[in-house]
C-alpha cells in the first residue's frame, strides 16, 4: 500500500453557512470504513464535500496522506483527486447504458492505475446481468449498486459515500448491506460513510466520527463507540452490541455456533447466505433483547446464555424517564454486551458493578 | 476553450472590417421615392457606367445615421433643417441646397377630397384623420401647422392618427386605418394614389417645406456624387420633379394661381 495510509486524511476547515458553522480539525486513518455519524444538518455532508473538493472554503487544509489536496492557494480539483463518490440519489447518466455508466470513470483512469476491472466489480456487486440495460430501467437498489460499481472502477484512493442507503426502502437496504459490507474488505479502499442511521454504522463501520453542530465531537473505534451507554448511536433506538467472532459448524437443527467457548452463541444459519465454518462474522444484539439472571436458568427456551460481569449501570438511552437501566456487561472473551433492564429488576437482583451474572440473549441478527 | 472559439469567430469577421468602397449611395426622404426612382432610371440611361443605389427612409433617422458614420454619399432630406444641422456639425462638405419645395394635400381613397376643405375634417362622419408624426416628420409638422392655422387642431386631436413617416401615413389611409389624411403632394401624384383626387392645401397656412440636400463627408471625393448633384439641377430631373407635384425653387404651382 502507499505511504499515504500511514499519515491518514487530515482535514482542517472552517465554513459558515446559514444555519451552522463548520469547524473541523482532525485526522482520519485511511483504513477500512469510517462512519461520519450525526443528525441531519450537523455538517457531515459538507465535510464530505470539502474532502471531495466540491466545496472550496478559503483557508482550509485537506491532505490525503502525503498528497496535498488543498492548502493555502493550492487546490486540486475534484477530477484530479482519485475519489469515488456515491450520493443518496444514484444519478446514473440516463443517456448511457449500465455498462457505459460503469466504464465512464474507468475510461478516464490511466491504465497503470486501474486495479479493479469491470467483470470483478460487476460480480462483487451482483450486477452482471444488468450490464446491457439502460440506466433508467433499473430499480433503486440496482441503481445504487451500479453507482457503487462506477465509483469503484476508477480504482479510487478513497471512497466517499453520502447516505447511500437513505433513499431506499427497508427491504432494498437489507439487500444492499451485504454488498457494502464486503466492499471495504474485498477492495481494500478506505471509505468514508456519511450516515444518520445507527444500524448502518454498526454493520459497516470500523470507526465512527460523531458530528454535532458542525464539529467532530469524537473519533473512536466502533467497539468503543458501542461500549458507552451514552453513545450517540443509541440515542434514538436504544443500545446495541456488536460482537465479532468466528462462525462454527451448522448442526442438524440448522443452528450454527459463533464465538469462543467462553462466550458461545448458537444462531440460526440463514439459508442462502454462505456460512462456511471458520468465517469471521458480526452479530448485532439489541440491548432490549438481553435479560440478566444471577444464576443460569435451566428450563428456559432461550438458547444463548452467556456468563458476564456487570461493569456499569446507567440510565437507558432512547427512553424517557428513569425507569429503565442499561447494564454494560463484559463477556468472558472481553467483548461488551449491553442489557436493558427495569430499575426494579436491577434493585431486586442487587446488581452492582463487579457482579457476576448470566446474560440471556433472546435474538440476534447477523451483520453480514 | 470557449474563449478561444469566440476569438476565432471574431477573427473570421475581421476581413470585413477593412475599408470598403462602393457605388454612389443616396439617402432620400420617403416622400421622394417615386420621383427619385424615375430620375434614377433616366440617370442610369444617361450614365450607364455609374453605379447608383438609393435608400429611402425617415429624414431624422438617416441624419442620425450619417452623424454616426452611415455610408451615404448624398442626402436628400424632406426638411432642410436636417442638412443644415449636418453642415453645422461638420458632416457635410457642401452648403445645403434647396432642390424642391414640398406641398401637402388632403387625400382619401374613399371620399372625394378635392371637394373638401380642412374644416370638413371636423365632420362627424369622419372618425380618423391621418397625418405624419408632427414631432419628427417634416410633412407632419406642416400638417399640424396648417390645421392650427384654421383653428381646428384642438378639436381634431382626438381623431388624429400618426404615421411614422409620410409614406406610411399614405399607406395607413389606403389600408383604411383612417378615412382621410394629409399627405405629400408628390405621393398623391403617384399613379396608384392619383386615381383618387386630392385637395391642395394653401401654402400660406404653414411654413414652407423646403427640401434640401447635401453631399456628405464620405461622398466628398466621389465624382458620381458631383455628377448626380448637377443632374438634379438639370431639366430632365426638374421636369420629373414637377410632374410629381414638387415646386422648383423660385417657381409656383399652376394650381396656386387659382385660389
Amino acid at each position, binding site marked *: 500500500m502507499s505511504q499515504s495510509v500511514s499519515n491518514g486524511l487530515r482535514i482542517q476547515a472552517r465554513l459558515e453557512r446559514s444555519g451552522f458553522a463548520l469547524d473541523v480539525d482532525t485526522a482520519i486513518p485511511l483504513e477500512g470504513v469510517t462512519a461520519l455519524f450525526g443528525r441531519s444538518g450537523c455538517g457531515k455532508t459538507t465535510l464530505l464535500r470539502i474532502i*471531495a473538493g466540491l466545496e472550496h472554503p478559503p483557508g482550509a487544509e485537506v491532505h490525503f496522506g502525503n498528497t496535498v489536496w488543498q492548502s493555502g492557494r493550492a487546490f486540486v480539483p475534484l477530477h484530479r483527486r482519485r475519489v469515488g463518490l456515491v450520493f443518496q440519489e444514484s444519478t446514473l447518466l440516463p443517456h448511457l447504458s449500465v455498462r457505459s455508466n460503469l466504464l465512464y470513470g474507468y475510461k478516464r483512469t490511466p491504465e497503470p492505475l486501474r486495479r479493479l476491472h469491470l467483470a470483478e466489480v460487476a460480480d462483487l456487486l451482483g450486477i452482471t446481468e444488468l450490464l446491457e440495460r439502460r440506466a433508467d430501467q433499473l430499480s433503486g437498489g440496482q441503481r445504487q449498486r451500479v453507482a457503487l460499481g462506477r465509483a469503484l472502477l476508477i480504482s479510487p484512493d478513497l471512497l466517499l459515500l453520502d447516505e447511500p442507503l437513505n433513499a431506499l426502502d427497508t427491504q432494498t437496504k437489507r439487500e444492499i448491506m451485504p454488498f457494502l459490507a464486503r466492499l471495504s474488505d474485498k477492495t481494500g479502499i478506505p471509505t468514508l460513510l456519511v450516515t444518520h442511521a445507527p444500524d448502518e454504522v454498526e454493520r459497516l463501520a470500523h470507526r465512527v466520527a460523531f458530528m454535532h453542530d458542525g464539529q467532530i465531537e469524537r473519533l473512536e473505534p466502533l467497539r468503543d463507540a458501542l461500549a458507552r451507554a451514552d453513545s450517540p448511536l443509541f440515542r434514538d433506538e436504544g443500545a446495541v452490541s456488536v460482537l465479532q467472532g468466528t462462525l462454527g459448524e451448522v448442526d442438524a437443527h440448522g443452528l450454527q455456533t459463533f464465538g469462543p467457548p467462553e462466550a458461545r452463541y448458537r444462531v440460526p444459519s440463514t439459508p442462502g447466505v454462505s456460512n462456511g465454518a471458520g468465517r469471521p462474522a458480526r452479530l448485532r444484539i439489541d440491548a432490549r433483547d438481553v435479560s440478566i439472571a444471577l444464576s443460569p436458568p435451566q428450563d428456559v427456551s432461550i438458547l444463548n446464555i452467556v456468563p458476564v460481569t456487570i461493569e456499569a449501570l446507567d440510565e437507558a438511552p432512547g427512553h424517557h424517564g428513569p425507569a429503565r437501566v442499561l447494564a454494560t456487561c463484559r463477556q468472558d472473551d472481553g467483548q461488551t454486551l449491553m442489557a436493558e433492564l427495569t430499575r426494579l429488576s436491577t434493585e431486586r437482583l442487587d446488581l452492582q458493578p463487579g457482579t457476576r451474572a448470566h446474560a440471556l440473549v433472546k435474538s440476534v441478527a447477523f451483520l453480514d | 476553450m470557449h474563449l478561444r472559439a469566440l476569438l476565432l469567430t471574431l477573427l473570421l469577421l475581421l476581413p470585413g*472590417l477593412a475599408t470598403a468602397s462602393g457605388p454612389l449611395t443616396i439617402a432620400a426622404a420617403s416622400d421622394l421615392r417615386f420621383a427619385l426612382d424615375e430620375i434614377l432610371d433616366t440617370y442610369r440611361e444617361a450614365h450607364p457606367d455609374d453605379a447608383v443605389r438609393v435608400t429611402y427612409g425617415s429624414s431624422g433617422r438617416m441624419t442620425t445615421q450619417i452623424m454616426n458614420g452611415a455610408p451615404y454619399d448624398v442626402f436628400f432630406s424632406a426638411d432642410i433643417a436636417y442638412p443644415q444641422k449636418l453642415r453645422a456639425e461638420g458632416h457635410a462638405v457642401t452648403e445645403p441646397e434647396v432642390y424642391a419645395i414640398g406641398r401637402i394635400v388632403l387625400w382619401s381613397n374613399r371620399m372625394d377630397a378635392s371637394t373638401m376643405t380642412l374644416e370638413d375634417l371636423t365632420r362627424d362622419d369622419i372618425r380618423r384623420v391621418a397625418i405624419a408624426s408632427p414631432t419628427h416628420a417634416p410633412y407632419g409638422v406642416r400638417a399640424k401647422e396648417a390645421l392650427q392655422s384654421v383653428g381646428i387642431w384642438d378639436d381634431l386631436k382626438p381623431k388624429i392618427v400618426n404615421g411614422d413617416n409620410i409614406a406610411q401615413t399614405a399607406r395607413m389611409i389606403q389600408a383604411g386605418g383612417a378615412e382621410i389624411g394629409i399627405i405629400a403632394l408628390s405621393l398623391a401624384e403617384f399613379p396608384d394614389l392619383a386615381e383618387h383626387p386630392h385637395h391642395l392645401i394653401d401654402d400660406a397656412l404653414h411654413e414652407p417645406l423646403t427640401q434640401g440636400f447635401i453631399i456628405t463627408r464620405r461622398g466628398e471625393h466621389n465624382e458620381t456624387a458631383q455628377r448626380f448633384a448637377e443632374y438634379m439641377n438639370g431639366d430632365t430631373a426638374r421636369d420629373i420633379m414637377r410632374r410629381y407635384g414638387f415646386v422648383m425653387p423660385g417657381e409656383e404651382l399652376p394650381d396656386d394661381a387659382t385660389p
Partner: protein
Amino acid sequence: MFELSPTDWMAIEVTLKLAIYTTLMLLVIATPIAWWLANGRAPGGLRTAVQALVALPLVLPPTVLGFYLLVLLGPAGPVGSTLESWGLNHLAFTFQGILIASVIYSLPFAVQPLQQAFANLGRRPTEIAGSLGAGRLDRFFTVILPMSRGGFIVAATLAFAHTLGEFGVILMLGGAIPGETQVLSILIYDHAEAMDFASAHRLSLGLLIFAFVVLFVVYAINRRFDTVRL
C-alpha cells in the same frame, strides 16, 4: 409567381447568414452565462443583476437598442473610434455590426431556455462526472450537453427564429444596405413602402413558410428525442 429579383436574393442570403451566425455565436456565449446563472456559486444579488441585464433586450424598443449600438459602434463611439484608430473600419452599417446587434438582441432567447434546462439538471451529474475524472470540457460534452439537449434545441431555435424577424435594431444600425445589411424584413417593408405589394407578399409568404417548416422540423426532432429518453 415566385420570381425573385437579385435584391430579393441578396436579402435572403444576408438574412440566412445573419440567423445562422447569430445562433452559433449565441450557443457559445449563452451557455456559460446560463450555467453560471443556474448552478453557479456567486451570491444571489449578483446573479439577479446579471439575469436582469441579460433580459434587458426584451424590454428595450428595438430602435432604441439600435440607436445605442449605432452610437457605440459608429465612428463617434468608444468601440468604433478605437477601431478607427487601429486603422480598421468602425462597425456601424456593416454585417459584423448587425451580427453583434443580433447576438445582443436575441441573448435572452438563448439564455433563458438553457438556464431552465441547466437548473433542472442541477449540479449533481457534473459532480459525479468530475469525481469520475472528467474535466470541465469533458463534462460539458459527455454529461451536460446530452442531458440538456432539449434546452439547447429550444435556445437555438428561438435565437434563429427571432433573428429572422428582426427589424428595428438592424434598420437603425445597419442602414439597409443591399447585400450587406438589408435583411428580408427590411426589404419587405421597403417593398410595401414602394407600394410594390406583389413583391412584399411574395417575400412575406416565403419567409413564413420557411420559418414554419424550420420550427416544425425542430420541434418534431425534439419530441422524438424526448420519447426515447423516457
